């Protein structure tokens, strides 16, 4: 049996109210709000958060494959999956690749991961993440959302077995973006719905149900992700589906999260599944993929580290002005401060487990945890008596803080906190996803993987503190 062993999701903290766009640009606003990756997030950093969440719920898994699917890879050349692997402390003997090109890359990656897991005794982790840009005044700007999801796939401890899958590929002028372009183009929607989304989804679903020897009535939940939700309505009508079975597409709360969306919708319905329940998952873009999953008895005792629902509730607004600055759509006056230096390759390699994995050290002589890792113990001064010590998943409390209005940031002021970790260890960290006036001594924080800045084409990833979500 091969299938989902664990899953995790990540919805960034910030929300942009669609009415806020309308207030500035005068365009009609659709209902609700969309999630926004913060100024220090991208598809890779969000993927790391989703994988961390999935790993927390599957601590025993060992991995042979990592697949990172996105249409918004931070690097055009350089393995983005390697960033995710380094930050989530994956083993070195790992097959890792980026899957990109269309929003279907997400569901395709899950199917690839299932194949990889089925063909080895090691698990595969699939990280799917997107932070797609829409041009101001356009539909995509309002309807897109940012987010990530991750699945651990394996053959043991399966909570949802993959019963069948079907794939179609068509060359089709639906959505496209040339290298160097910031915003995607798309063809007129009657054409894409009638000639692509509806027929392709319909065919893939028909195929997968036939393979699994099922009828629509056998399905407990249905996850269909289409760039245009009207295609989903058409399919549901033609399948005579009970609308209550359709998964929430988060249109009002998050927006459409690109490659991550089908997976995120699936993560949304997973907590509702009972053993034996079947779920259909289908997504469309330049073809379609569909799969049928069946919940196993193990699902009854599975608890995600952070549910999608909880993350939808945990949020703070971003103004449209700040959103435009964060995405560098609106150019701003540079500060009277020097640009940050590009981090250097050799020190980054030397400190990889620290920089990406947030691994400090613990003195084996006196037991004091410390970070960054030290040679001489800060407490007992024993020399080279250290063992690696992971801090990323430990919570910490604020000892003191500084609100820096002078430092360069896309989102001033920069908040710095001195934090003390549960179990020991002190660190001076930048703090994110919080309001400066709310920071207080004694507050609890947790660590999150972020992109601090980009200089000379090098994305500088490291960890920050954030209020406990």
């Amino acid at each position, binding site marked *: 049996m091969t299938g989902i062993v664990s899953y995790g999701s990540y919805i960034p903290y910030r929300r942009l109210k669609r009415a806020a766009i309308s207030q500035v640009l005068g365009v009609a606003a659709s209902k609700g709000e969309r999630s926004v990756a913060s100024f220090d997030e991208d598809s890779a950093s969000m993927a790391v958060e989703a994988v961390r969440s999935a790993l927390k719920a599957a601590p025993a898994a060992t991995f042979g494959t990592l697949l990172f699917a996105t249409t918004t890879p931070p690097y055009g050349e350089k393995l983005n999956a390697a960033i995710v692997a380094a930050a989530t402390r994956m083993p070195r003997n790992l097959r890792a690749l980026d899957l990109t090109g269309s929003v279907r890359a997400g569901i395709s990656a899950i199917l690839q991961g299932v194949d990889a897991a089925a063909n080895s005794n090691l698990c595969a982790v699939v990280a799917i993440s997107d932070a797609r840009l829409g041009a101001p005044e356009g539909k995509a700007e309002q309807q897109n959302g940012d987010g990530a999801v991750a699945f651990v796939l394996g053959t043991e401890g399966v909570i949802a077995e993959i019963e069948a899958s079907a794939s179609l590929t068509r060359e089709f002028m639906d959505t496209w973006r040339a290298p160097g372009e910031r915003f995607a183009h798309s063809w007129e929607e009657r054409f894409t719905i009638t000639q692509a989304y509806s027929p392709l989804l319909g065919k893939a679903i028909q195929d997968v149900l036939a393979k699994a020897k099922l009828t629509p009535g056998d399905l407990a939940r249905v996850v269909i992700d289409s760039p245009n939700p009207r295609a989903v309505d058409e399919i549901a009508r033609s399948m005579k589906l009970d609308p209550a079975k359709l998964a929430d597409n988060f249109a009002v709360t998050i927006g459409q999260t690109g490659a991550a969306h089908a997976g995120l919708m699936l993560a949304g319905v997973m907590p509702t599944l009972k053993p034996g329940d079947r779920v259909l998952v289908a997504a469309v873009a330049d073809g379609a993929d569909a799969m049928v999953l069946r919940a196993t008895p193990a699902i009854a005792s599975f608890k995600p580290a952070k549910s999608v629902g909880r993350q939808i509730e945990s949020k703070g607004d971003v103004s449209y002005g700040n959103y435009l600055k964060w995405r560098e759509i609106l150019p701003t006056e540079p500060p009277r401060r020097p640009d940050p230096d590009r981090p250097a390759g050799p*020190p980054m390699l*030397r400190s990889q487990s620290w920089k990406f994995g947030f691994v400090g050290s613990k003195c084996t002589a006196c037991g004091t945890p410390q970070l960054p890792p030290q040679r001489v113990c800060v407490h007992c001064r024993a020399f080279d008596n250290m063992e690696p010590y992971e801090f990323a998943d430990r919570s910490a409390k604020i000892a003191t803080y*500084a609100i820096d209005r002078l430092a360069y940031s896309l989102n001033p002021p920069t908040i710095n906190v001195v934090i003390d970790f549960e179990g020991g260890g002190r660190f001076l960290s930048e703090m994110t996803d919080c309001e400066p006036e709310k920071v207080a001594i004694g507050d609890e924080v947790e660590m999150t993987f972020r992109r601090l800045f980009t200089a000379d084409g090098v994305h500088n990833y490291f960890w920050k503190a954030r209020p406990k979500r």
Partner: protein
Amino acid sequence: MASRGIKDRVAIIGMGCTKFGEHWDKGPEDLLCEAAYEAYASAGVQPDDIDAYWLGTMGSGVSGLLLSEPLKIQYKPVTRVENMCATGSEAMRQACYAVASGAFDIVMAIGVEKLKDSGYSGLVGNAPPNDGTEGNMTAPASFSLLAPAYFKKYGLDPDKGKDVLSRIAWKNHRNGARNPKAQFQKEVPIETIKNSPKIADPLGIMDCSGVSDGSAAAIIVRAEDAHKYCKKPIYIKALSFVAGPAEGPLSSDYDFTTFREVVASAKDAYSQAGITDARAQVSMAEVHDCFTPTELVLYEDLGFSKRGTAWQDVLDGYFDLEGKLPVNPDGGLKSFGHPIGASGLRMMYEMWLQFRGEAGPRQIKDPKIGLTHNLGGAPGRCVSFVSVVGKNLG
């Protein structure tokens, strides 16, 4: 093993100090020339009389050539020194030791910084290639960490705490208003200070020292030779410099209400000078008031106030020019300005003027023992210098 010090073995016989401020018309070479020639004249010596030089600058140039080239120094040793914001004091300490060792008869310590040419606000670091994990905290933010920690520990509500900080800046501006070489020679109403635009909450722009250009220099000889040059030399009683293990960002037992480096250097300096009660024995002090909370914490670290009581002493005017222990009579970094490499020597320049009765409208009545304190880095991760100087031997 001991830090024995060189009490009363060397003396300063001449000093020079440029005006600090925005010298758009002068480069570091000009500033060095002016401070050096003022010091030569003050000591009544010729350039060729100087046997060796110690030059402090954090970033306005490299090597001894920064000094020897503009001054046309005739093939003498020039040592370039850097120790962050304590650079000027470090240059002086090395120069004093060289004389005390007997290696040279007469030397100059000189510091310079040209900050206003960068076009940036505040100080700018120059980090070596790195892994990108060091934070990008600015200096005011680093030192602002002291404020909430101190307020919380001693039960000051933030508004009262802000009053204390503002009063420190107010005092230093008041002193600077009596100093023709200070960058800012104006008294500033306490409400203006309190309401100045925020830089690193609760610090406003008026809690920060002046970004400044300037240079200062001292000529040093063996104490027994001092009267050959000078009627009123000043004597070095103690020089202490420590670099800490940077425990602040690493160890939870550091609480951001003290500089352990300052405590250690003060203890060492007091032991060298034979001071047992700093609050009673020190007549005046120049301390490193880079930001107002720094000065607050320094009062306690230097033993001027008991732990948790410095804020009360501030409100009582204890450290005012007319107070029991005037601190930063020349206006301090806040009002005199802070050209990094020059500041430690500028502090000594105030000792020089005060002991000789040349401090004009800010003259302190008959000071006997003075202290300068200079630090570099940030709370929990710094280097600290303390000197004790005296008007008389013994």
